[in-house]
Each structure stands twice: as C-alpha cells, then as structure tokens.
C-alpha cells in the first residue's frame, strides 16, 4: 500500500492511535504517516470537547416516555417489536417509536435478570444442606470478589506530580508545582537556596517529560517541556551556580550534577525502552533532554574545577570530592 492508502485507512479507523500490525509496521518506518496519525489522534482527542448546539429533543423524548403509563409503553412496544419481527426488514413501522423500544428492552432485561436470579436461588435451595452451604459461600465469595475488583478498578491513580491535587482537567499539578518553585525563589535569600529551587524546577520538567513520553500524541508537548527544561538548566541553574558561596559550593555542584546525570541516563533508557511505541520525534525529544542534562552536569563539573582553582575555595576536602565524583 502507498502512504495515501494508509492515510485513508487511518481516517476510517475508529482508534487511529491503535492501528493493526501491518499499518503499525508502515508507521514505524514512515515519519510523514506518523505525523498524520498523531494529528488524527489529537483531533480524536479534542472532539469530545467541542461545544454542541443546545437541543430540546432529549427532554421532549423523555417527556414522551414519561407521559405514557408503564404498562401501555411495554405493551405497545412489544407489539411494535412483534410487528417488526414478523414483517422483517421490508416493513418498517409507520412511525418509529424509539422511546417505546428502549422501555421494552429495558424491562425485558430486568425481567430476565430477575428470573435468572430466582433460578440460581431455586437451584441452591434444592441442594443438600452441606452442598447448599458451599454454594452459598461461593455466591458470597463471588459477590465479595466483584466488590473488591470494583474497588480496585475505581481506586484513583496517583497524580503525576508530588503535589496532592485532584485530576480534574482544570487542576494542573504542574502549574501548582512550578508556582511553588517560583515562590521559593521569591523567598530565597541566598544563591544556594535559589540553586536548590532551580534544581527542583528542572526535576519537575524532566519528571513531566518522563510521565508523558509513553503517549504518542504528546510529541509537541514534550518538545515544549524540553525547551523549558533547557531554559531552566542553562539559563538558571548554570548561571546561579556561578554565584554559589565557597562553603557548600562543591557539595551543591556535585549533588545537582549527579541528579542531572541521573536524569540524562534515565531519559536515555526510557527513550530506548519506548522506541517501538512512540514516534521518532518523541524519541528525538527524549534524546535532546538527555543531552541537555549531560551537558548541564558537565558545565557544573567545570565550575567545580574553577572553584578548586580559587584560592578562597582551596580547601583540602574539595579535591578529594572531585576525585570521587569524576565520571569516566
């Protein structure tokens, strides 16, 4: 198939982000089709949020259903259903009555469920007393298992950031976290506090990138996050590191440098792990973040060496730490 055919196929797909294996194979090798798929997935994602025009049809339909007595609704609908069954597809009812159909189907399902429940109970009642105890226990266990399963499924997942916020669309944990970092910077009275706050801010972005990376449609958001990460590392962290006071300078540079290096390695590994599932652009973005983190670590290490050459920082312990923390 040509790219054009793949694109048409994706257009007709119910879930363009989960295409069949042969389409997946093509997508893995074709960046253009990958972009197309991502755009489609994003459109699919946004459709439920489109405003819909107001309509009185729903309330009118409900009024129609509720205005009829229950037995009339059931009887009429049964008749309509019978007519449909007899005449087959050739004879459609003269006037469609969806409300009646819904009512009948609902009540029949309820009847069927009740009958099934009664049958199970009758079977249990007819058993030997010992078998009856087992059966009752089994039914109770099944009910409890269903309740447990339901509880586990319904348990809300942990939010992505450390701040305990709910997961409503309006409440953005990243905004709340970054604002807290800004407030910490606003309160910081020295370079060391500012450096620590910026390191946390950088971690916030790398954590967010790691969280969003598995989503193929997050490509553009990831790119934006990595750009912000770069600003924080190069425009903030490295700049403030130059003002760090002598006493804790090396310790802080080591600590944050190690964190940057760890982030670089983790994101690199994540990129490799996710590579079959995410678009090439996302992989490149992860690689970019990884490189920024490694470069940031190197810049901090260079500053540490400068601090060693400074006479006021030439403490005996400094050179020891340097030897220990040097990377291969």
């Amino acid at each position: 198939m040509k790219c054009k055919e793949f694109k048409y196929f994706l257009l007709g797909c119910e879930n363009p982000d989960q295409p069949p294996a042969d389409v997946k194979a093509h997508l893995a090798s074709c960046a253009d089709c990958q972009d197309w798929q991502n755009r489609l997935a994003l459109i699919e994602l946004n459709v439920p949020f489109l405003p819909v025009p107001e309509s009185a049809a729903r309330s009118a339909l409900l009024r129609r259903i509720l205005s009829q007595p229950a037995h009339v609704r059931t009887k009429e609908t049964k008749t309509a259903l019978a007519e449909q069954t007899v005449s087959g597809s050739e004879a459609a009812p003269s006037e469609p009555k969806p409300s009646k159909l819904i009512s009948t189907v609902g009540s029949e399902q309820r009847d069927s469920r009740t009958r099934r429940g009664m049958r199970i109970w009758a079977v249990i009642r007819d058993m030997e007393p010992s078998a009856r105890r087992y059966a009752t226990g089994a039914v109770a266990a099944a009910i409890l298992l269903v309740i447990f399963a339901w509880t586990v499924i319904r348990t809300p997942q942990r939010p992505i950031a450390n701040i305990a916020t709910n997961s409503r669309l309006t409440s953005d944990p990243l905004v709340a976290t970054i604002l807290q970092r800004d407030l910490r910077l606003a309160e910081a009275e020295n370079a060391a506090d500012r450096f620590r706050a910026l390191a946390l801010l950088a971690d916030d972005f790398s954590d967010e990138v790691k969280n969003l990376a598995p989503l193929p449609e997050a490509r553009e958001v990831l790119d934006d996050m990595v750009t912000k990460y770069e600003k924080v590392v190069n425009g903030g962290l490295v700049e403030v590191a130059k003002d760090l006071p002598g006493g804790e300078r090396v310790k802080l540079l080591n600590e944050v440098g190690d964190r940057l290096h760890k982030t670089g390695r983790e994101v690199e590994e994540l990129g490799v792990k996710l590579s079959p599932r995410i678009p090439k652009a996302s992989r490149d973005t992860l690689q970019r973040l990884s490189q920024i983190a490694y470069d940031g670590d190197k810049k901090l290490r260079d500053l540490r060496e400068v601090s060693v050459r400074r006479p006021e920082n030439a403490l005996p312990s400094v050179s020891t730490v340097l030897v220990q923390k040097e990377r291969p």
Partner: protein
Amino acid sequence: MKRNVSLSLLMIGFAALATAQPPQSATPGPERILQAQRNQKLVEKLVASGLSLARATDRLDRAKYCNDLARSLADEIKQAADDHDGDRAIELGRHLQDLLKNGVAANLNKERSQFPQGSARETDCTRIRDDSDRITAPLITDLAEAMKDNPVALNQLLDVIQEAKASFIRPD
C-alpha cells in the same frame, strides 16, 4: 464452623491482596496533554518569572517580578471567568493569592521591617503594593460582571483575592 472460618480467612486474604497493591506509576491519560497544551503559555510565564527571580538578589526586585506574574495570572483568571470556567478561575485565584501573599507581601513586609518609615525604600515598598492593588481592583470589578451567573464561584474567588490583599501591612 471450620469452613466458615476458612472462607472468612480467604476473604480477608483477597481484601489484603486487593488493598496491598503498590500504587502504580500511572501514565497520565490524553486529557493531561490537553491540560498541558492549555497551560503552555502560563507555564512559560511561570518559568520566565522563575528565572528572573533567580537572578534578583534584591527583595523589592523579587516583589516586582511577583507582581508581573500576578498580572499574568489575573489575565488568566479573567479569561477563565469570560469562558464561564468557574473551577479554573478559583484554582488560578488561589495561585494568585499565594503569589501576592508569599511573593509580594512577604518580601515587602520583610523589607519594611528593616527601614524607617518615610525612607526612600519605604516609598518603593508602597509603590509596589499599589501596583498589586492595581492588579486586583479591576479584577474584582471585572469578575463581578463576568461571573454573575455563578455566584458561588464568584464569592469564593472574591474571598481569596480579599485575603491576599489583607496580607499587606499598611503603614500608619
């Protein structure tokens, strides 16, 4: 009896199994992407402010930068109110309160305590506080109009803004 005990133990076991599962590191859903896209500009402003704050060694400069960010938040709140998104307006209102209280007022109050009344520094503090007022006063007026159909959210929002205003120490 023995069977009942066994059954109960089995149930307790299942319950423990169900509840003892470690929290999974959940991948956020696609709605997180929408949220991130929606707040892209705001996050950009927060980062820019953070970098400015990191460079500012003077408290009054930091208070000014917080005021700049508060202005951006006020614009976002106004936008949320115009969009009839009361939840978002309240959420951002709380952020604005935090920023004015712990960013602007805290720095100004600390600075005031170190300089005598009537000093040039004191005048600077008053000017920055007045800037904060110029951010919140029109917001209160605008919100009253934009959120008149959602009085509950409006009252919550006005409360947080008033509380933020009250955190400024006014010189006698």
